[in-house]
C-alpha cells in the first residue's frame, strides 16, 4: 500500500508541481495582495492591511467605466447569442442536404485567431479620411449618415463590440445545441406527429424541455465568458482600451498590472477578486434558477 502511494505520488508529481506553483499558490497570494495597502513592487514592501485597494478601484472612474462596459456586453451578447444559436441549430437540425457544409462554415470562427480576425472587423466598420469603409457604404446606400464605428459615438462602438463578440461565441453554442437536438429521441417526435401536434407546440412541449439543460449550460458558460471579455476588445480597438472608452474589467486588471499604467498588482488583485465575486454570484443564481426551471 505504501509502495503504491509513493508510486502514485511520483506519477502525479509533475502535475502537482505545475498546479501548485501556477494555480494554488497564486490563488492564495492574489487574495493577500488585494489586502496589502501601498504595496511597492520594486521594494516588495507595504505599509498596511485593509480594504483600501478595494475602495480605490471602486472609486476609480476607469474601473467603473470598465464595469459598465462589461455589464452591457454581458446583458446584450448572452441573450442574443443564445437565442440566435438556438434558431440556427433548430434550422440546421430540420434540414438534411448541405447540413454538414453549414456546420463546417459555422464552426470556422472558433478556430481563428480572434486578434487577427478582429482587424478585419475593424476595417469593415472603420471610417477614415479616404474611405468610409464597407459597412458605411451600405448604410449610405439606405440614405443614412456614415458613422465612425471605431472612434465614434459610444453606442456605435458598443454595437461593433457586441456584434464581434456574438460572431466569436456562436460556433461553440451552435455546436452544443445541434448535438443536444440530435440526441432528442425520435420516438417523441413520431408520437407528436401521429397526434397531429402543431409544430410550435412540439417545440415548446418536447424540444425545449429536452434541451433545456444544455441551454442553461450555455447561459452559464456564456455569462462567465462574457464577464471575462478582453481580447475581442483589443482586437477591435487596440491595446489602449481606456482611451477608446471600451475597457473591460479584465482589461482594467491587466492595465493595472502591466504597461504604461501598470505596476499596481494590489489594485489588479482587488479588481480580480471583485470580478470573481461577481461571476461566482451570477453563476450561483443561474444554478438556482436552473434547478427550478430545467427539466432533467
Amino acid at each position: 500500500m505504501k509502495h503504491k502511494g509513493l508510486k502514485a505520488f511520483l506519477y502525479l508529481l509533475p502535475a502537482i508541481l505545475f498546479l501548485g506553483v501556477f494555480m494554488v499558490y497564486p490563488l492564495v497570494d492574489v487574495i493577500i495582495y488585494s489586502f496589502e495597502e501601498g504595496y511597492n513592487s520594486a521594494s516588495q514592501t507595504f505599509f498596511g492591511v485593509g480594504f483600501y485597494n478595494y475602495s480605490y478601484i471602486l472609486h476609480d472612474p476607469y474601473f467603473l467605466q470598465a464595469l459598465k462596459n462589461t455589464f452591457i456586453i454581458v446583458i446584450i451578447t448572452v441573450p442574443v447569442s443564445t437565442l440566435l444559436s438556438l434558431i440556427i441549430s433548430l434550422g440546421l437540425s430540420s434540414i438534411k442536404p448541405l447540413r454538414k457544409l453549414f456546420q463546417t462554415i459555422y464552426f470556422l470562427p472558433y478556430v481563428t485567431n480572434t486578434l487577427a480576425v478582429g482587424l478585419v472587423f475593424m476595417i469593415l466598420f472603420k471610417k477614415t479620411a479616404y474611405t468610409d469603409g464597407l459597412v458605411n457604404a451600405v448604410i449610405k446606400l439606405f440614405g443614412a449618415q456614415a458613422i465612425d464605428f471605431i472612434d465614434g459615438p459610444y453606442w456605435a462602438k458598443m454595437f461593433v463590440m457586441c456584434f464581434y463578440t456574438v460572431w466569436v461565441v456562436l460556433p461553440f453554442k451552435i455546436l452544443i445545441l445541434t448535438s443536444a437536438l440530435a440526441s432528442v429521441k425520435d420516438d417523441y417526435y413520431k408520437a407528436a406527429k401521429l397526434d397531429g401536434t402543431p409544430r410550435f407546440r412540439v417545440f415548446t412541449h418536447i424540444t425545449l424541455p429536452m434541451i433545456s439543460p444544455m441551454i442553461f449550460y450555455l447561459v452559464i458558460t456564456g455569462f462567465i465568458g462574457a464577464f471575462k471579455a478582453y481580447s475581442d476588445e483589443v482586437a477591435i480597438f487596440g491595446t489602449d482600451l481606456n482611451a477608446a472608452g471600451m475597457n473591460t474589467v479584465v482589461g482594467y486588471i491587466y492595465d493595472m498590472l502591466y504597461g504604461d499604467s501598470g505596476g499596481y498588482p494590489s489594485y489588479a488583485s482587488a479588481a480580480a477578486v471583485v470580478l470573481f465575486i461577481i461571476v461566482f454570484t451570477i453563476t450561483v443564481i443561474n444554478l438556482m434558477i436552473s434547478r427550478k426551471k430545467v427539466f432533467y
Partner: protein
Amino acid sequence: MTVNQAYKKPKDKGKASKIVFNTLIYTMLAVWALIVLFPFYWMLLSSVKSYAAYSVEYIPKFFTLSPTLKNYADAFTAVPLGRYFGNTVIFTLLTTALMLVVTTLAAYAFARIDFKGKNVVFSLFLALMMIPNELVIITNFVTVTDLNLRNTFAGLILPSVASIFYIYLLKENFEQIPDELYRAAKIDGTTDFGYLMKVMIPVCRPTLITIVILKIIECWNSYVWPRLITDNEAYYLVSNGIQEIRENGFGRENIPAMMAAVVVISLPLIILFLIFRNKIMEGVSRGGTKG
C-alpha cells in the same frame, strides 16, 4: 372513405407549407453562413489588392482584377512576421509536448493506481478547474518576473502546461480499458510503465489526438499571457505580433499588407480544422469552452 380524406387533406396542405418552411430555413442558414464567411473573404480579397488600388477605392470594391502577392512579400520582409510565426510554432509544440507528458502521467495515476486519498486528490483537481485564469495570472506575472523568466520561452510555456480538463478527459478514457488486459500484461512480466506506453497510450490514441489538437488551437490563439510576459519583439507570438503590426508595423494606412499578415496567421488553424474537422468538433463539444 372518410378515413382516406382525413388523411389526405392535411398531407397536401403540409406539402406546400413544407416548401415555404424549407425555403425560409435555407435562406436564414445561408444568411448566417454569409456573415461568417464574409470577413474571411474580405481579408483574402484585401490582401491581394495592391496598396495603390486599395487606397483610391473610396467605396471598397468586392473584387479585384489585378491581384498581387506583393503584400505577402511585404508581410514577411517589412515586419518580422516570420519570426512571430516561428516563435508561435516553438511555443505551441513545446507547450503541447510538455502538457502531454504531464497529463498522461497524472491520468495514469488516477486511472490505474489505487492509492490512499485518491478521491480527495482528484476532487481537489476538479475544484481547481473552477478557478478563473484572471485570478491567478497576477501572481504568475510576479513569479515569472522574479525568476527572471520574462522574454524567455520558459516563462511563456510553464504556466500553461498543466490542464486539468485534459487530465480528466484522459483518465475517463484510461478507465475504460478492461482490467483483463492489465492482468495479462502483468503475467507477461510487463512493468506498469511499459503497460502505459505499450497498451494504454496506443489504445487511447483518439483521445490523445483530440487533446493535442485542442491544445494547439489554444496555444496558437493565446494572447493575454504572452503579452504580459514579453515586451521584446524577438519573443512575440502571432497574436502580439499582429497587434504590434497594427500599431507600428506598415504604417496604419497599409491595410492590404496587414490583411496579408492576418491571412498568414489564420491559415494554419483553418487547415488543421479542415483536416481534423470531426475530431475538433467532437472534442470541443465534450468540454471545450469559448464564449
